């Protein structure tokens, strides 16, 4: 950038036209504190990037979002988390179970010897070493800096390698054309989808929809930053025995289970 050689900063107020334009651009690029306004034409004003925009900060590499499911609190037959996910992200059954979306599902486990059953939600486990991202030929499957594993549908070609690579069957393919998707959860025919850990809510500082719904009926799911030892979730993980599903695979899931 040629402007880089100029000595005046974004807030120099040197008054020149170039200086004024620079003010806006610098502010934007550096996320600067100053708020400058540039009048382009009558009625059209450009505001430089402001400060108190927590949302604009982006994914924090120091964090790792994760969940802890206390299976003993998960009520058999309750599908509150699944319903909440459907409502939040706008997916529903297509009437064809073989090709239904699989953002989150309730799985019932049964010990054949004792007959004891356990019920637990299974969704994308947001692995630290996601196999879906490893196999993706276009870079559409990726892990965000804060550990959330997503599909960038702008790059997804619908090859479904990630679906085969995922040990948790956490992804599904959209077979039919859709309309009126949720603005915060775009999804469309010919692309792969899965749990986003409600990334649009997390970026706003709100817990995922399933966690919120579960808190009203059992409170089995806990959400938080598992990279921060002071967080509530980390303390529980450090205190009690928890496990990762198929932890032997070495993919280090961000979703842990207790009392499974």
């Amino acid at each position, binding site marked *: 950038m040629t402007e880089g050689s100029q000595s005046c900063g974004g807030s120099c107020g040197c008054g020149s036209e170039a200086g004024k334009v620079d003010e806006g651009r610098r502010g934007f690029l550096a996320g600067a504190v100053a708020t400058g306004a540039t009048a*382009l034409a009558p009625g*059209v004003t450009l505001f430089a990037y402001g400060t108190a925009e927590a*949302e604009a900060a*982006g994914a924090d590499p120091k964090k790792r979002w994760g969940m802890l499911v206390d299976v003993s609190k998960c009520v058999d037959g309750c599908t509150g988390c699944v319903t909440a996910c459907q409502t939040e992200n706008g997916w529903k059954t297509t009437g064809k179970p073989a090709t239904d979306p699989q953002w989150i599902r309730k799985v019932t486990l049964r010990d054949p010897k004792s007959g004891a059953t356990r019920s637990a939600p299974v969704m994308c486990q947001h692995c630290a070493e996601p196999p879906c991202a490893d196999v993706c030929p276009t870079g559409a499957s990726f892990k965000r*800096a804060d550990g959330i594993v997503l599909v960038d549908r702008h790059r997804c070609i619908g090859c479904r390698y990630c679906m085969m690579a995922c040990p948790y069957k956490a992804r599904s393919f959209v077979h039919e054309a859709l309309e009126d998707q949720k*603005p915060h959860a*775009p999804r469309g025919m010919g692309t792969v989808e899965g749990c986003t850990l409600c990334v649009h809510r997390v970026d706003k500082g709100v817990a995922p929809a399933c966690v919120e719904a579960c808190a009203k009926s059992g409170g089995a799911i806990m959400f938080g930053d598992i990279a921060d030892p002071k967080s509530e979730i980390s303390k529980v993980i450090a205190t009690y025995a928890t496990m990762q599903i198929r932890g032997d695979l070495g993919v280090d899931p961000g979703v842990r289970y207790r009392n499974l």
Partner: protein
Amino acid sequence: MSERSSLERLIVVVSLLVMTVLAGIIGAHAGEVPLPTVPKATAGSCVAPPDVMRRSHMSMLQHGRDLSVRQGERVEGGRLTGCIDCHAVSDGKGGHETVSSPQHFCRACHDYAAVKVDCFECHASRPEPKVKASDATSEVPASALAALADYAEEVAR
């Protein structure tokens, strides 16, 4: 071939050319060049002047989508969502037109230019119906506009 016949041919060609050019000029003056009918937006002003938007909206959207999806750098009100909310076209029944209608804001120009737009294979092409009627035409927050405007400025250079 005689000299005369080639001269005659030249005259025919030149007069044809002149007629074509004249027809074009007269046609244009008579308002026969069709232009797209672009629906008006609901809010006051856009993030950038119309000529910048016409030329650069695709780059702005592409820039914004990578920030949102991959970096998690979101803007309040959303980027594409902000455009959709402001440029919604009423269907006369209390709702808004989807991209399946030729009256849809994006389609008005894209049909004219014969450019396929595939945003709406995944994104909703009309605003989400709001519970509160007062929110339906809520203004796009300044922060959302600011980021786009700055980018527009950069692209326009």
